[in-house]
């Protein structure tokens, strides 16, 4: 077996070479991963096994770690750059693989330094609709990074950066980064609509059947990620039900339907029939796509990122449990039932904030993994969560508070909280260490390193 875990004669090897060529524009050969020659690593797949153990509620050999496998367990590009410098890794600009939140790609060398056990499989299309290809240099806040070739921006007179859907500068901008700040926010482009003439198809434009090209890309990228070492967590998209980050569709040039965040929230109260129509059709398309994906990749992936809709706020929730059960639950159950019947994938659900009141419903629907486990929100005490749900939900996150301790605390405070959270959440498996959501810009590298070192300490590796 080669360092990348593949065999030269296999189809997956050919797919791997194609992946390397397209991503890094090199003539790839054996032992190349991420454009760089890698030593033989982790042939026995310990990382994958420990993740599989923990997501099946068995005690793993140590607490597994995720940084960078999803768009909600990642690290801001500026922090990735700082970490690369800290660990004295090869000097090269960070790739911004998720431009909406400006998340940096955690490449293999950094993944090793952070002892990460999970590899993400992403769609090539980003939230702004262009693909992660044809990398080009870009500078923001003094940091040189690489961005996708169609990452197209203009600057307002006030110095804010505007970004355009699909890189189309003739369209209205769909995202804005205030001057001196660190990520984009969606620009709401809500045309006037007649509330008596709403057409659910207008809110389904972004949910389409996959093309053969899409499937080829998914298969190639999954194969390339499958090196036998890490567990694979895939974000294929299309199954997020009313994820408010996606409602404004920053990827579309001319969104129609309800695209205003306030109007969407109002619709969950006053236009439920309309929402039902959207979700029903969206699930139909989403499951058909998942079936086709599964036909191509089988159980190569271990976990599927199903949905990022937030149901919690800092102190409460966006709706009552009865509303959730009426409006969302049937569709989550439908998707989870299909996935569990037809695949071996575990199902990952993200929900920020005070979300505990929905956990029983999530479990009943078939959700296996919950993220980000925002313990700073009301009702989200870690010991309470573990004791009540620990044998039925995998806590993917919750490792360190990202609102106060990680960005503003001392390294000692970070260490203390990480050790405590690992102690609480890791009993009998069911825990993958990650910060609570992405590591934000401005987080001191000393604190991030303290977090990593604390996990190693807990795992007996310090």
């Amino acid at each position, binding site marked *: 077996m080669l360092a990348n875990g593949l065999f030269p004669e296999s189809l997956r090897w050919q797919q791997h070479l194609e992946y390397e060529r397209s991503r890094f524009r090199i003539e790839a050969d054996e032992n190349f991963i991420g454009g760089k020659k890698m030593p033989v690593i982790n042939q026995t797949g310990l990382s994958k096994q420990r993740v599989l153990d923990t997501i099946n509620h068995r005690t793993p050999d140590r607490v597994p770690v995720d940084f960078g496998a999803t768009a909600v367990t990642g690290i801001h590009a500026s922090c990735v750059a700082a970490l690369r410098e800290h660990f004295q890794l090869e000097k090269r600009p960070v790739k911004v693989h998720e431009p909406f939140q400006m998340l940096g790609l955690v490449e293999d060398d950094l993944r090793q330094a952070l002892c990460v056990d999970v590899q993400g499989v992403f769609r090539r299309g980003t939230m702004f609709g262009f693909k992660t290809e044809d990398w080009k240099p870009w500078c923001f806040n003094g940091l040189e990074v690489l961005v996708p070739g169609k990452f197209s921006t203009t600057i307002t007179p006030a110095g804010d950066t505007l970004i355009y859907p699909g890189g189309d500068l003739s369209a209205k901008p769909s995202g804005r980064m205030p001057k001196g700040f660190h990520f984009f*926010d969606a620009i709401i482009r809500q045309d006037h609509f007649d509330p008596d003439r709403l057409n659910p198809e207008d809110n389904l434009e972004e949910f389409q059947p996959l093309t053969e090209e899409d499937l080829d890309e998914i298969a190639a990228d999954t194969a390339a990620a499958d090196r036998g070492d890490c567990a694979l967590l895939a974000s294929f998209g299309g199954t997020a039900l009313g994820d408010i980050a996606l409602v404004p569709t920053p990827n579309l040039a001319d969104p129609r339907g309800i695209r205003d965040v306030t109007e969407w929230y109002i619709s969950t*109260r*006053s236009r439920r029939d309309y929402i039902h129509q959207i979700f029903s059709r969206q699930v139909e398309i989403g499951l058909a796509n998942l079936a086709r994906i599964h036909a191509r990749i089988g159980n190569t992936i271990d976990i599927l990122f199903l949905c990022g809709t937030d149901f919690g706020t*800092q*102190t409460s929730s966006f709706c*009552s449990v009865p509303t959730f059960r009426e409006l969302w639950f049937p569709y989550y159950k439908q998707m989870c039932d299909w996935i569990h019947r037809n695949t071996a994938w575990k199902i990952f659900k993200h929900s920020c904030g005070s979300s505990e009141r929905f956990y029983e419903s999530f479990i009943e629907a078939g959700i296996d993994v919950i993220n980000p486990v925002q313990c700073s929100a009301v009702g989200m005490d870690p010991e309470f969560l573990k004791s009540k749900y620990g044998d039925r939900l995998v806590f993917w996150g919750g490792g360190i508070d990202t609102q*106060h301790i990680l960005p503003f605390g001392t390294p000692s405070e970070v260490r203390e909280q990480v050790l405590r959270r690992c102690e609480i959440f890791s009993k009998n498996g069911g825990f993958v260490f990650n910060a609570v959501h992405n590591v934000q810009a401005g987080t001191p590298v000393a604190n991030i390193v303290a977090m990593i070192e604390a996990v190693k300490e807990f795992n007996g590796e310090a």
Partner: protein
Amino acid sequence: MADLKKLHDAVLNGDAKTAVAVTQEAIAEKMNPAALITEAMIPAMAEVGRLYECEEYFVPELLLAGRAMKGALELLRPLLAESGAKPTGHVVIGAVKGDLHDIGKNLVASMLEGGGFEVTDLGADVAPEKFVSAIQEKRPQIVCLSALLTVTMPAMKRTIAALKQAGVRDRVKVLVGGAPVTPEYAKEIGADGYGENASVAVTLARQICAGVPGFGDGKYRFNSVKIV
């Protein structure tokens, strides 16, 4: 005769069409515009706040009620100005520099308006100097700062510093709020109050204005403003 109970219930239930229709009827009948506010809309929004605090109402219900209230208020504003009716107080509100998230701030603004306050909403991504100008121009009693993000919280401190530098800090009470904001942070940056939600913000604003001569009972009660 326009039914104030119907207006009250329309605001409470987020029924903007009915709220506007009843208000139009009341205006046609030359009802006292202040009466619609004090006898229907303020009690309705107070009940909305109570239902939100006890988690029977959530963000969507607040947004709907706020929309119904605003629809009615838009019709009454010109008439209120003519009649010389005084608001409960004047609040300037905005999301601080760098923060584009405004739903929470909008909810607070709606609840304050529904509570009888005059509100100057500066929007989102508001520079400190814009808060300074608003204080100099509008002479509010209260300034509300909102931040949803950890990375924009420091802008609250910079805004308060800008108010001090401009010599206007002592003219206002500064209330802060937003998901990552805590009472401890509010104290650390020198704010006067912290509201964990829109309803608390209105309560604090009322306490503040009750201590200002010319409003409420006129007793000076700034010292009783509570940092929750």
